[in-house]
């Protein structure tokens, strides 16, 4: 659905130049929910804005649904944007229009006639659960309701792709959850592809299939979540399953085990103590459901040095588990 290839974007020049995007390549498959995470200033907004050409990249190719937008003319670009929905952190609703009027704006732009416009706008408001507010003005709505209007407006023209720039960052955790749920449901229902930008790992955990980590305008990691989880040293995986600081080993061995897919429901720890006769201490665990699969990370403490536990570690690895030594090292 989206293919970004070697995108660069620099703001300013000389000493004050900011390389907002530095050779970024990214692919988002049809029907996927793809999350881009990164700290503030990493270039996330610039990245998502290049997808619908609100920001023109200095170089690189932007292709959406098979159409190259980086070389498109103005009229062509407008037509393409009508097929790409976008929602924003601060909702960007017109205060001069009612909820219905805001949704209708999207249809007016496309040139839908007045009667069909009302019908279609009401239909989509129903989908986001805001029928009762259709004649209210944005100032009378809560943040979550405003974002629902934003979603309705973005989807009114039946796009195949939804771009979301920190759409939940101005919302409280509970509202965030309900908005994410809505995005997830709608995307499944309508077969929508979603590219979302966030600085919150929780958002990625909740709805994304794939993710990329952006740092100083560069993509440091990207891939399907299930795959990232089982990648040794993955920073995204660490952020997804934070286990905190490693305690002093004090002569023991401390390991992190990553479970994913089938390995999650095996009685690994019980088996470890039974087969090798060691007392395993669980220091921490983080389990989540990702793309419908249980996945997670457990931090274990095994008595004695690494050498004493070689057999046990071998055994774990041979079961296909990802084992990382985080404390104890060589004795």
């Amino acid at each position, binding site marked *: 659905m989206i293919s970004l290839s070697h995108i660069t974007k620099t703001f300013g020049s000389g000493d004050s130049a900011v390389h907002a995007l530095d050779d970024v390549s990214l692919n988002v498959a049809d029907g996927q929910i793809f999350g881009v995470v990164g700290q503030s200033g990493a270039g996330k907004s610039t990245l998502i804005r290049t997808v619908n050409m609100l920001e023109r990249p200095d170089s690189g190719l932007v292709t959406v649904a098979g159409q190259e937008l980086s070389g498109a003319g103005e009229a062509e670009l407008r037509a393409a944007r009508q097929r790409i929905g*976008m929602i924003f952190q601060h909702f960007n609703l017109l205060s001069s229009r009612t909820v219905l009027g805001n949704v209708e704006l999207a249809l*007016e732009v496309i040139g839908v006639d007045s009667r069909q416009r009302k019908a279609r706008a009401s239909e989509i408001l129903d989908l986001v659960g805001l029928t009762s507010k259709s004649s209210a003005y944005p100032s009378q709505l809560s943040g979550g309701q405003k974002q629902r209007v934003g979603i309705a407006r973005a989807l009114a023209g039946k796009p195949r792709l939804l771009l979301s720039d920190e759409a939940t960052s101005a919302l409280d955790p509970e509202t965030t959850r309900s908005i994410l749920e809505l995005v997830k449901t709608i995307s499944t229902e309508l077969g929508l592809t979603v590219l979302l930008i966030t600085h919150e790992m929780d958002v990625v955990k909740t709805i994304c299939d794939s993710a990329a980590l952006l740092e100083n305008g560069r993509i440091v990691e990207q891939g399907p979540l299930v795959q990232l989880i089982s990648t040794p040293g993955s920073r995204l995986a660490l952020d997804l399953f934070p286990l905190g600081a490693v305690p002093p080993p004090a002569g023991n061995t401390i390991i992190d085990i990553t479970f994913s897919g089938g390995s999650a429901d095996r009685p690994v720890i019980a088996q470890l103590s039974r087969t090798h006769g060691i007392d395993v201490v669980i220091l921490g665990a983080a389990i989540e459901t990702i793309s419908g699969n249980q996945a997670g990370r457990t931090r274990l403490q095994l008595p004695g040095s690494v050498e004493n536990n070689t057999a046990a570690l071998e055994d774990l690895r041979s079961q296909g588990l990802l084992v990382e030594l985080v404390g104890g090292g060589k004795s």
Partner: protein
Amino acid sequence: MIDPSSPTFWTELWQVLLSGTGQTLYMVGVALLVTVIIGLPLGVLLVGTEKGGLFERLFGSRLVAWVVNRVLDFVVNLGRSIPFIILMIAIIPFTRLVVGTSIGSTAAIVPLALVAIPFFARMVEISLKEVDGGLTEAAHSLGATRWQIVRKVLIPEALPGMVLGLSTTVTSIINFSAMVGTLAGGGLGDVAVRYGYQRYSTIHMVAVIVIIYLIVQGLAVVATSLSRRLSHAPR
């Protein structure tokens, strides 16, 4: 000298005030209409041709946009700095060209509009600049044309501010319309000079002041409440 005890005094006063008010409303009304028709697009152009504006590439060229912006800015500043009485006299040939005469209420409309246009254009500019850039961006993301953005986003969103600006503009047009009256433009200013000043009728003078006060205050009240209703702000 006018004699207030004459039996026809009050009917004459009433007629003089009625026709004076009528002329003032006519001058101000038409001047205002012309001001909005020309000042609004000017304000839009002033903002649009700025760097990063909607029309920063006017007719496909940054240079054209820049030149238009600088020229408009200069003209607006010039219009705002010339004292009205000088402007009024200086443009008499132009006034004759446009309306065919240089005296009377119709002729007065030309300098009134000319002084009000730059004033209102600035008001429009200020109101447009207060519209959140995110709204323009949202409209772009929907695939809107520039014209659609101006019509459906910028102007409606700036309307509450523009209404207030318009009310300030009307007040200054009324103010200047009284000055035009002294140069045979008619209207309430003319009444004040001919009866109140030249013929020492305090009653005429007071009546004119009261009427103008009522018009200005009435407009201000209407504009404030209209602006508040348009802004749909939470109560």
